[in-house]
């Protein structure tokens, strides 16, 4: 299963590279969102710095809806998903490859946004950059696992562009809360030692939804 997932992940990354114009558009979309937040809140730099973590995750969340939707649109174009199923390919490997691929894409996006955010909002980093990377990775994973399942479902429905955020946003509220809190703590320091409990919540969310995704995804793609 893992080797199949690896092949599929390579295929998705190759596809992403061949269509990098789309990837660029996604990056600029996320950057524009980040910029718009600062316009919406006025040039109050202390306020911006205080809520920088929240804006970063909102920008990522909006971008993720686009990238998640795209990840299964590619498979639907010539019914490639059917083609993969009939090879045969393990559906769980398919889930793993898509979820990991989406995580990597979001993480890449986060790393592009990070320096921009630091410059734009005047943020300083209190804890180690490594812990920030860890929080970002956990948060991206938390969006991707349920996002992959929902994207596969929404892709076959009418009005899929509305449906995916409608399904996904309420579901990942806890992950978003935890990610924002943890990011803010990493940026501004953690005198009360709250970071571990938020990271714990984020990890539990990941554990549950990666597990559920693996268990349920075969039913989603098979009849």
């Amino acid at each position, binding site marked *: 299963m893992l080797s199949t997932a690896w092949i599929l992940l390579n295929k998705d990354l190759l596809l992403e590279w061949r269509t990098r114009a789309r990837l660029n558009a996604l990056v600029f979309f996320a950057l524009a969102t980040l910029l718009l937040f600062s316009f919406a809140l006025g040039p109050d730099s202390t306020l911006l710095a205080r809520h920088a973590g929240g804006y970063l995750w909102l920008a990522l969340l909006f971008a993720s809806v686009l990238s998640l939707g795209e990840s299964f649109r590619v498979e639907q174009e010539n019914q490639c998903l059917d083609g993969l199923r009939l090879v045969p390919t393990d559906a769980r490997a398919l889930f793993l490859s898509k979820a990991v691929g989406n995580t990597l894409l979001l993480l890449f996006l986060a790393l592009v946004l990070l320096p921009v955010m630091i410059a734009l909002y005047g943020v300083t980093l209190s804890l180690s950059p490594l812990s920030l990377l860890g929080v970002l990775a956990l948060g991206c994973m938390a969006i991707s696992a*349920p996002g992959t399942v929902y994207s596969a479902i929404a892709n076959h*429905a009418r009005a899929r562009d509305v*449906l995916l955020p409608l*399904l996904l946003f309420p579901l990942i509220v*806890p992950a978003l*809360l935890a990610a924002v809190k943890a990011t803010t703590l990493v940026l501004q320091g953690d005198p009360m030692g709250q970071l571990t409990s938020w990271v714990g919540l984020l990890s539990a969310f990941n554990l549950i*939804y990666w597990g559920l995704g693996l268990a349920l995804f075969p039913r*989603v793609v098979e009849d």
Partner: protein
Amino acid sequence: MEDKRRSLRLGLAVLGVVTLGVGAWMGLFWAPPDREMGDVYRIIYVHVPAMWMSLIACLVNFIASVGYLFKASWKTDSLAESTAEVGLLFGVFGLVLGMLWGKPTWGVYWDWDPRLTSMAVMLVAYMGYLALRRFIEDPEKRAVWSAVLGIIAFMDIPIVWYSVRWWRSLHQVQSTPQTVHPDMTLALRVNAFAFLFLFLAFVWSRYRIAQANRLEELALPDSLPDAAADGGLTRTT
């Protein structure tokens, strides 16, 4: 058979309405006012049962969803559909009652109280569930996918609850009245049973509608002369 069920359903509804009448009288006039909250607390008799019914609906929806994935049957699919809709009804007006309660107690309609906030988040999730059902035409696919959705959404309830509570921990969480008069408990119980009867009557009626819709979607007017005897309501896969 059908007549018997019909009268049973009607009886359930009548029982619910009568109990609700008694409950309303108890809640509004019979039960004593609360020490701290005065008469405003009387909203509890409609607000709390509504929230309970909403949670029961989520639970039944989850069980029906799991059941469908283990053994495909239109019955569990219809049950899941009806509980989602009825649960959403109770949840939405329960939430409105919570806001009406919040205004005189906290001074604002919306206080980011963990329970109400979690409930609001879950209601949006179940609205998505119903929207998905509406947007997929193929009955088989709709049943499978909404079952997956029902499971995923239900697992989210405790996580949402914990995360919102931690998120709000800077603010004192409002607690249930410490000194509960026994009459209050009784009034709450009567109202809860009234809501339960109505809930069951609603779910049952909605279930019949769902089953009839399935039948219509799958009706086979002119083909399969022999195999169609069961109306296509049994699945062999």
